[in-house]
């Protein structure tokens, strides 16, 4: 009998060496999902005209036939201030009715509650609530050129911002640096260069070296006051201004007092971007605050300092 088993085992062993045995893959059902509206609305008190692009989600394996299928036409949206309807969004145009716009009649007020509501007959209604963070002051800001060693042994610049944290409450901030670009045109009549406009270019930050600061969306440095509650905080960021055009153009330091929701969204959004489906990196979930929807609604208090 043992010879029968031997032959049986040997034949099975040989069979197991075929490609079908070792490249075993089987289709399985993807995770279920709910159809939801999606948009991102990041407001600060310097905004005057606002817009949202209303889109929808698809299953992880679904592929919309065209890019336009992502967008949801015919949605409505309203913005409430302290429980009272403040603004009704209107479609940008008939063709672009998925873009909803509104004009703010006054700036956002610190301490006020803002609520966004959006709806469409085919999707669950969406809402989110935010409280405008308190006003704050930047004590000072400066840029030290060629102040610190860079990654490759060269000298790079250091931005320093000092601001006062409000004690007794959890505060979150975002600091971004922008280099200003002046769009110019030669005027043959005057023989001089005319300035057509100013463009802000977000500056890539080399590093922070500060456990209070985490990388956020679009080169933002996110700060939680957990370890400096009520104190003057010194923010430092290393960057290379030479990478952004002429040395004599201005640097804008933008500090925003943001909500906890924004802090969580921005941090997770950036981390998710960095992960980029790398299987060797721990997965990152992106934070949302839209009830029954995907995306973020946030309000922030913003201060800019231009450094020449």
């Amino acid at each position, binding site marked *: *009998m*043992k010879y029968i*088993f*031997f032959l*049986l*085992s*040997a034949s*099975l*062993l040989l069979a*197991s060496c075929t490609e079908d*045995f*070792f490249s*075993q*893959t*089987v*289709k*399985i*059902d*993807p*995770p*279920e*999902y709910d159809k*939801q509206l*999606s948009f*991102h609305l990041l407001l600060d008190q310097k905004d005057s005209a606002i817009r949202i*692009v209303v*889109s*929808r*989600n*698809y*299953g*992880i*394996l*679904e*592929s919309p036939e065209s890019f336009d299928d*992502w967008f949801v036409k015919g949605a409505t949206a309203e913005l409430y201030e302290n429980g009272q309807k403040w603004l009704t969004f209107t479609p940008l145009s008939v063709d672009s009715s998925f873009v909803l716009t509104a004009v703010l009649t006054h700036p956002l007020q610190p301490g006020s509650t803002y609520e966004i509501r959006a709806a469409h007959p085919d999707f669950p209604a969406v809402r989110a609530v935010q409280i405008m963070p308190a006003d704050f002051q930047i004590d000072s800001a400066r840029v030290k050129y060629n102040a610190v060693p860079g990654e490759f042994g060269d000298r790079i610049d250091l931005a320093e911002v000092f601001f006062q944290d409000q004690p007794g409450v959890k505060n979150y901030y975002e600091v971004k640096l922008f280099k200003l670009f002046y769009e110019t045109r030669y005027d043959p009549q005057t023989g001089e260069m005319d300035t057509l406009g100013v463009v802000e270019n977000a500056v890539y930050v080399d590093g922070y070296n500060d456990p209070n600061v985490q990388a956020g*969306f*679009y080169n933002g440095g996110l700060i939680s006051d957990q370890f400096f509650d009520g104190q003057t905080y010194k923010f430092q960021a290393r960057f290379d201004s030479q990478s952004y055009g002429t040395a004599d153009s201005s640097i804008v330091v933008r500090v925003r007092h943001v909500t906890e929701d924004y802090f*969580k969204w921005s941090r*997770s*959004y*950036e*981390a*998710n*971007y*960095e*992960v980029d*489906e*790398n*299987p*060797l*990196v*721990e*997965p*990152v*979930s*992106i*934070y949302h605050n839209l009830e029954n929807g*995907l*995306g973020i609604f946030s309000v922030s208090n913003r201060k800019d300092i231009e450094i020449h």
Partner: protein
Amino acid sequence: MQRINTFCPPKPAKIFVFILFLLFSWQIRAQDKFTISGTVTDQSSGEYLIGATIRDVKSGKGTVTNTFGFYSLTLPSDSALIAITYIGYKPGAFQFFLDKNTAQNISLEPGSVLREVEIKGERYERIEERAQMGRIDVPIQQIKNVPAFLGEKDVLKALQLLPGVSGGGEGQSGIYVRGGGPDQNLILLDGVPVYNVSHLFGFFSVFNPDAVKDVSLIKGGFPARYGGRLSSVIEINMKEGNENEFHGEGTIGLIASKLTLEGPIKKGKSSFIVSGRRTYIDILARPLIKAGFKADGSDGVVGYFFDDVNAKVNYKFSEKDRVFLSFYAGQDKFYFNIEENDEEYEDRFKAGLGWGNITTALRWNHIWTPKLFANSTLTFSRYKFETSNGFESREFENKALISEDKFDLNYFSGISDVAAKIDFDYLPSPEHYIRFGANAILHTFKPGDFRSSYSSFEAGEDISSFSSNYVQPNVQATEFAAYAEDDWKINSSFRVNAGLHFSGFALAGKPYFSLQPRLNARYLLDGGWSVKAGFSTMRQYIHLLTNETIGLPTDLWLPTTKRVKPQDSWQAAVGTAKTLGKDYEFSVELYYKEMNNVIAFREGSSLLQFEGWEDRVSQGRGTAYGSEFFVQKKTGKLSGWIGYTLSWATRQFDDINFGKEFPYKYDRRHDFEVTGSYKFTERFSLAASWVYSTGNAVTLGNSQYLGPSNYGNYLSTITHTPKRNNFRMPSYNRLDVGVEFTKKKRRYTRTWAFGAYNAYNRKNPFFLFTDTEYNNGQTKQVLKKASLFPVIPYFAWSFKF
């Protein structure tokens, strides 16, 4: 202000000493009582029998042997009828008049499986009699009966078939007990912790069953003598070696062969055992691999092997003193070298991966008095991991070297321990079994050294080169513990095991202390049922950063620091147990466990980033609860067990999943396993195992939407993941079968083993991935699971003499 250079015992230490005092202060010198003591051994081999029952039939008083076969039974001066029983052995008995302290060593004759087919073992300590909960003893023969992957019988793979224990899945090396992590298991080989128990990326464990005598698993209700890990204690004791005759056994299998030799060095005084094994796929496949490279115009070799060796010697200096020296060394090595040569260029590439353990234990048993036994141990344990790769590239023109590039990268990490401990067993009366002791461990952590160098040369140009070393200095830390426990038979129904474990850890001026109470209680009901309850608190000072995803042994053991706190847990359990019929042990346990400061990588941390580990980890809370049902039959023609676990395990970290609780990756709602072997005749046996478990929880996006691009004013597609570990992989189930044909030859006994792993070719999930399918010009995204092993048959030839 911080006080230094003075030592004031911490509060927990004072409490510990006080309770220790109370524990022993009840002692009143018993009059007219004498003690019978000695060891219980196997008659044929002289091996100590662990857990043998010694009972005075007249009074009903009894005790069990400890890890070194020692027993002590104090009885009133009277005639005594002592019965000795042990599973798999013929019972022994002797009658005498006890009028003085008596030393009596006892040998039991094995109930020969081959001659009698049925193993006798009627009156060992029954499951309902034991106070301790959460403990499972698995006879090594039962482990050897379990059909195994490629025929390689494996201790840990067999333990993974027990309720409350899981192995993560195929291609994963960890062991997960009651919702705990892979670092929370104290795995002891002859009392020495083994840090990495995996061979071949987790498909085998480092324990060679031929050299193992005894295996036990404790997953809750931890007695006070154990500490240092939160979730389990797996105690594996090696054989001592036959002290009467020279014997050997070996196996030639599909991928590995092994050989074990044992025998007396000096009969009745000293014996040895040595056991080794090695895989040889690399050797067998080498000609084929080389030919394959040659066909591609290159010269190369790729291979993998593991080997290990266990050795142990012992010497009996007197009836009261015996010394054991045991040693284990094992390594895994993967290598890949390729070379391409031409008249114009030479290219060489090499890569290697290796890891391994060394453990050594020197143990001294001393019987101080008939009631007091001591075991003193010095141990050494080392685990190291190393990886290297590099290339050399040279270009020639008219045989003259015109350019050269060289690159080398090496990484090392590891941990080593030097430890000393002393354990006492004190048996003042049949009602009390007191254990106390202390230990100290000096840990040396090697958190990881990166060394890389690059040089480049081109004719006519200077040589450019750089080297980069990221060397993290070794970290030394001291861990120490002391304990006392009493297994107290209060009356015929009520028995408790109560104790305290005190531990401490010191690293760079930051001391931690912990006092951990432990309690197990059992109450015997009518009808042979018992109800049990247990409570234990545990503390763990060392942490493991491991890669659970891709099966590489990149284990990095790290200490508790000022920033990274020790892990703590408490566990409570209740249950019932009964021996059904003659030899079916049945138990049900309900447990609840909370773990604090469990460790995990932060979101977005790379698993292959080795520096700055404290910044990349997060500490949080773990909760596990469930119920376990277990039926085990250790004796008879049919032996095996059935286990079922219904459980929940979750984790919560402030900076993972936005602080919300989520299922642990190895949260298994259902886990069912049945394994058994049936011995039809002396020559033929059949064994089978079937397992079913809920799939692992994994993080998988369920939808996609448009979000702002991170670098520009356009929209990009974002994957939405509702929460961590939101998706269940398909369930895991597998049947393994095996048959054995045994024949006694003139000089030896040989066994042919045949079997199949995954007999019905279940495509069990290994990992999930998305793929694009093309059909009639249309593309479609699909989700697929990849499986690792189809049905894999095996055969092996083994011998024993």
